[in-house]
């Protein structure tokens, strides 16, 4: 697939001298959902703001479907919709008016039925004539999404769409994103919730200190970097890990009822067969065996800490 958004060597130094982006390169493919994961202050919002034209970059180039965002800003921006992190809405306006306003701002002709449809898809069909200030926080977020979708963009940026929202609304948001992907919209979202990236993204980019540390297919990332754990539950507690099993570097649970073995899924030999055989030899009786894969969170923490070191 061709890159719809292409970011090349982008740097951003703010007036105070703070370097928020240090040579960022990123290609976003059409139709994908990419999650930019990073701690607060990593440069996620600066990167999005730069692509959308809110912040000017210090150096580098960005194109959207081949159009330079500076030289050809009208065409480039028309293809982009942005949902900001903060709920920035004019409180006294009616929902339908504020969404129609956004459509006009992006140069599209008035089209009430299209705007109504966008609102209905976002379950705001019965709130169109309400003033924005009458809506709940969750509905206001939907209005922001409706505004961003009102001009039928090909690329949608969601800046921390679920920061500070309750679990139910977060799930709703994920459903909306999945639905948009089905319609062919490319989605870039920033988040510091790892479970969010894990749940909805196709690819994950990890950003920290203004640099992209890696961009990888979610499944590949987890498989490549993921360690797996094998937990062996015992019928009877053990005091210490038997000397015969010392080579496996097992972790004993506090009550001595289970032992945990960590192995690399990529390795030629995982050592599981030998371990189980040695456990039997050591005279321990197994009650149960389970495996689990390390979460994206562990990968992420590992990367960010490695970066800071």
């Amino acid at each position, binding site marked *: 697939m061709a890159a719809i958004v292409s970011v090349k060597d982008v740097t951003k130094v*703010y*007036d105070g001298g703070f370097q928020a982006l240090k040579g960022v390169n990123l290609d976003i493919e059409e139709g994908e959902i990419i999650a930019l994961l990073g701690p607060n202050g990593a440069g996620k919002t600066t990167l999005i703001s730069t692509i*959308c*034209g*809110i*912040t*000017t970059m210090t150096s580098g180039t960005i194109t959207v479907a081949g159009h330079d965002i500076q030289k050809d*800003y*009208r*065409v*480039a*921006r*028309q293809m*982009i919709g*942005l949902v*900001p992190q*903060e709920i*920035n*809405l*004019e*409180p*006294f*306006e009616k929902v339908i*008016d504020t969404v*129609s*306003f*956004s*459509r*006009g*701002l*992006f*140069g*599209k*002709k*008035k089209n009430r039925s299209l705007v109504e449809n966008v609102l209905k898809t976002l379950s705001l069909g019965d709130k169109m004539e309400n003033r924005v200030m009458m809506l709940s926080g969750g509905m206001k977020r939907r209005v922001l999404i409706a*505004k961003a979708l009102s001009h039928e963009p090909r690329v949608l940026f969601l800046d921390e769409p679920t920061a500070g929202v309750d679990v139910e609304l977060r799930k709703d948001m994920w459903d909306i994103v999945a639905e948009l992907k089905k319609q062919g919209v490319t989605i870039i979202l920033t988040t510091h919730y790892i479970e969010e990236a894990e749940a909805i993204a196709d690819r994950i980019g990890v950003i920290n200190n203004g640099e992209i540390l890696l961009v990888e297919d979610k499944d590949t990332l987890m498989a490549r970097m993921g360690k797996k754990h094998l937990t062996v539950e015992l019928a009877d507690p053990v005091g210490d890990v038997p000397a015969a099993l010392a080579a496996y570097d097992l972790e004993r649970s506090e009550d001595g009822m289970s032992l945990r073995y960590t192995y690399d899924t990529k390795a030629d030999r995982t050592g599981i067969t030998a371990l189980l055989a040695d456990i039997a030899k050591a005279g321990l009786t197994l009650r149960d065996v389970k495996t689990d894969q390390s979460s994206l969170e562990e990968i992420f923490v590992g990367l960010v800490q490695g970066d800071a070191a």
Partner: protein
Amino acid sequence: MNLQAVRVIYKSEMSRFFRTIAQSFISPVLSTSLYFIVFGSAIGSRIQEVEGVSYGAFIVPGLIMLTVMTQATSNASFGIYFPKFIGTIYELLSAPINFLEIVIGYVGAAATKAFIIGMVILTTSFFFVDITIQNPFAMFAFLTLTCLSFALLGFILGIWAGNFEQLQLVPLLVVTPLVFLGGSFYSISMLPPFWQTVTLFNPVVYLVSGFRWSFFGTADVPIAMSLGAITLFTALCLAFVWWIFKTGWKIRS
């Protein structure tokens, strides 16, 4: 040119005007009526005619200018400051529009509001005093240019202001005193010679004088100077707005 964007900005600014109709409409009419009662009837009855015009009629152009200048400034400054304050400015910055289109939308709406208010005050004044407008064309031209230039000034203030206090600062401390001392309620010839000279440094004098000339055919300063002054003022504001556009001052980080 993104005409749709200009249209929606203009429309949404105008709808704010009509939404707050009491504040934006009734209050200037009420305050003007009060001026007529106090200055026109109570004090005016003790003042002789000024340059052959009854005092009540004499103050009409000044009253219109006073309100139009302050309204154009405050409407335009609030119009662009409000999105900055509530954060909706992100949309203007990420939309496929240029600064010129933003200016036309906001300044156009603020100038229109001020123009409407000016016409309402003029209409109100017909109920209080007898006036004839000798040169309606010049009157409309002066009114339009004043609305536009002060809306541009307001736009610049709105971009510059970092908080509500700063937003009020210039209109309260600069515009209002200049307008009050700009010959709105008196003819410069009524002042002692020293103050007549000082007054000539007040740009508003030229605007009020020119506007009054279009009503009564008499003026404190030559009409050509008034025309020159309003043109110069408009040009200065336009140049400043152009500079903001070029540098992204206070808008884009």
